[in-house]
């Protein structure tokens, strides 16, 4: 990718604006400092106790339980957000209504809010005596201190990703194609599923990937609502935190590297899917 960019901009073909060397150099420096260097430190720290110890740490029963919980919760939350995000983006682009600007701004609130605040308010709302919690309790549903709580916190913090990925695509969409389909006899559902949805697939995938990655790493919002019971409601990020507090840096780094690998695999798969979806056009 970087090699391609450099090759495309041959030094003897001067553009209108100078400064490729300076901007590219700064970019590479910061990427190295902010992304690559910490990752390298993490991996070297994780590898320090040796392979057998590394494997023992990351495959311990407690660690595996956190992976399962974190991954399944993030998956469920992201799938939920796929629908919620599409719905929100749809409302914001397709209809004129009073307060649309306000709603549009509120979508970003989970970005702006400190996640601890989000966690606290969710715990309060969904707790056994909270506004929603008391009704759910009456129905026999307990949210706080269960996986349901973790999922709700993840949903809250990752909703904007899907909305902001889909919204611009919906805004740019030519409504004439929908009118053409209608004039050919298509029902509203046929228009949505056959004409609109296929064009949204790449954006939905991108939003899903970002929401999933965010949910994997979410910490602040979850620890208040999860209960943090080992083997049951303990997420991977919390286990890393616990290992750190025990001054067991190698174990923390080892578990963190698993999360890192999961996030990378996820991004890679989504990128492949997106490439495939673009080629379908």
């Amino acid at each position: 990718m970087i090699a391609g960019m450099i090759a495309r901009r041959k030094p003897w073909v001067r553009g209108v604006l100078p400064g490729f060397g300076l901007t590219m150099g700064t970019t590479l420096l910061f990427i190295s400092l902010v992304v690559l260097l910490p990752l390298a430190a993490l991996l070297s720290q994780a590898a320090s106790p040796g392979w057998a110890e590394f494997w023992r740490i990351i495959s311990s029963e407690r660690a595996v339980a956190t992976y399962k919980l974190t991954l399944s919760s993030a998956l469920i939350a992201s799938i939920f957000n796929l629908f919620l995000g599409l719905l929100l983006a749809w409302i914001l682009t397709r209809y004129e209504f009073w307060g649309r600007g306000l709603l549009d701004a509120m979508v970003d609130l989970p970005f702006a809010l400190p996640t601890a605040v989000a966690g606290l308010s969710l715990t309060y709302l969904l707790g056994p005596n909270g506004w929603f919690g008391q009704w759910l309790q009456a129905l026999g549903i307990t949210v706080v201190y269960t996986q349901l709580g973790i999922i709700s916190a993840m949903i809250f913090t990752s909703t904007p990703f899907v909305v902001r990925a889909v919204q611009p695509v919906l805004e740019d969409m030519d409504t004439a194609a929908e009118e053409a389909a209608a004039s050919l006899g298509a029902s509203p559902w046929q228009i949505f599923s056959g004409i609109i949805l296929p064009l949204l697939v790449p954006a939905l995938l991108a939003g899903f990937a970002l929401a999933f990655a965010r949910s994997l790493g979410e910490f602040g919002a979850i620890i208040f609502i999860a209960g943090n019971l080992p083997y049951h409601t303990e997420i991977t990020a919390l286990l890393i935190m616990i290992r750190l507090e025990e001054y067991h840096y190698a174990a923390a780094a080892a578990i963190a590297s698993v999360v890192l690998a999961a996030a990378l695999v996820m991004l890679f798969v989504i990128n492949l899917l997106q490439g495939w979806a673009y080629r379908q056009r």
Partner: protein
Amino acid sequence: MSGDALLSIELSDVGKHFGRFQVLDHIHLRFPAGRLSALLGPSGSGKTTLLRLIAGLESPDQGVIRFAGEDVSHLHVSRRQVGFVFQHYALFKHMTVFDNVAYGLKIKPWRERPSKPVIRKRVMALLELVQLAWAAKHLPAQLSGGQRQRIALARALAVEPRVLLLDEPFGALDAQVRAQLRAWLKQLHREIAVTTLFVTHDQEEALEISDHIVIMNQGRIEQSGSPQQVYDQPANPFVCTFLGQAHQISAHLRQGVIYCGDQVVGTAAPGLSHEGAVRVYIRPHDIEVLPPDDTRSALTATLEQIAMIGPYVRLALRLHATQALIPADMTQARFAALHIAADNTVQLVIRKPHVFV
């Protein structure tokens, strides 16, 4: 293509406004069955809105739209059986050309849906008709604008529409392709003979290919009739100046004779009994220029400028009576035969003055 009897479109007292803006104002119209009709007007005249009302893409605030006598005013677009072609093609860009054309057939409820081989046969026949069978497996993005518009037309025809509606179909194409497609559309219409309406702001396009022209301005119908009719007998100054060039001179009418100052321009149409000031519109090619020594005319002018424009010559003439400057067109040969030069005085015969009170 359509096996049904040909169908006419009637609009009675149709009105539409967007907010406070009256887009269409009490429209009464009838489009003849099986003909190719043009809706012609400047931008903002309401012609596209009218077409969208007929398609069912907009609903009228008042009035009734009928297809062959049947009231369709409240029929949803998907039930109206209209083929609609958009200015910017509106193809489904994630589908191949084949799937685009097949779309209307594939989405039919299974009771009415033709079998796969039948769909295939019909789509390929349509692609042959629009001369794009070779592109069946291509995506729309791989085709040129003219080709895309032909695909859009094939897609609209696939469901055997009762009427075909085209919204500035060639508006986004360059001049050469536009001219080709015009001729091709005229030919195609002769083959399929579906009642067809197309919207255009290009008067030449409307005059060239339509059987029937409706001229609109500011939400009203200015005139409707055959191309010959609207061109030769414009109902009002707007139609006269919108269809081709026409220049106004002020004149007055006395006992059926048109005077410009004290010089005679010609005689008015027999029906006009007005006395006094009138506006006379003259087309550049309706002016016959005679040498100064000719005595057939009393209307004199000074030749101010000569411009050679391809095959013809345009003269700028200053009328002696009113000092108005009007253009006259003639062939190169005719101009050479006149032996006139700039600043000469010439005599004019106006073949067809259009007089409006």
